């Protein structure tokens, strides 16, 4: 059921003509993924998925669509002509990786262990403290860059 949500949402994102419908299908896809993370015993990842993807990135993308939609949404075709090449390539990729996933003998654990929030917090601030700090720096740089890029040109500023 959740897999149908993920794959169907993804297919709708790629094939729908109206980009706002695509964004809504993307939210369906991300919500189903959050359910899958919860089923896999990673509730903290599911919560982060809901907060970051459903909460932040979806709203950001919807805002960008509304800021840029010029009203001429009825294009002859939403697809580039290189779709004819991209389709077979994506199919071959999915076939190869899927075949590798099926034919490999994974030594699957007998019991799946849920990841506790405490364990994640402990290792995030001990073993993975350096990636965490680098990530905070990256987020700071991204914020500054986004402000610089999205600001109006100088001559349009009000004085």
């Amino acid at each position, binding site marked *: 059921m959740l897999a149908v949500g993920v794959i169907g949402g993804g297919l709708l994102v790629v094939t729908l003509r109206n980009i706002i419908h695509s964004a809504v299908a993307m939210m369906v896809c991300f919500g189903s993924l959050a359910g899958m993370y919860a089923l896999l015993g990673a509730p903290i990842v599911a919560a982060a998925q809901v907060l970051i993807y459903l909460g932040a990135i979806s709203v950001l993308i919807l805002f960008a669509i509304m800021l840029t939609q010029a009203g001429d949404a009825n294009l002859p075709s939403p697809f580039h002509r290189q779709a004819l090449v991209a389709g077979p390539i994506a199919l071959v990729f*999915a076939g190869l990786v899927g075949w590798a996933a099926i034919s490999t003998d994974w030594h699957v654990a007998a019991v799946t262990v849920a990841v506790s929030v405490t364990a994640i917090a402990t290792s995030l601030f001990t073993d993975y403290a350096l990636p965490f700090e680098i990530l905070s720096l990256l987020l700071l740089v991204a914020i500054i860059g986004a402000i610089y890029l999205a600001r109006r040109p100088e001559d349009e500023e009000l004085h």
Partner: protein
Amino acid sequence: MGLQGYLIVSTLLFAIGAFGFLSRRNAILMLICIELMLNGVNLSLVAFNAYLPPASNAGAIFALLVMAVAAAEATVGLALVIAIIRTRQTPEVDEYSDLKE
């Protein structure tokens, strides 16, 4: 649905995202497809973390880090796309062909 089911779902999600990125003409939709690909990889990381024996939580932590990087990437990418749409008045990527001529 075991580990292989989750891996197949994640592979399909990545392939759908790659196909959309290569074939759609709208710049914002290409960014959405990048997010789809990142989510496919995230799903495989969390699935490996849940099913494979060494009982560590590296997969979940990698997934969280990938999410933060994806948020940064979406912010800067959307700012770039909005800036380029403001100057070129179109979101179609095949209209951005100044360097070709």
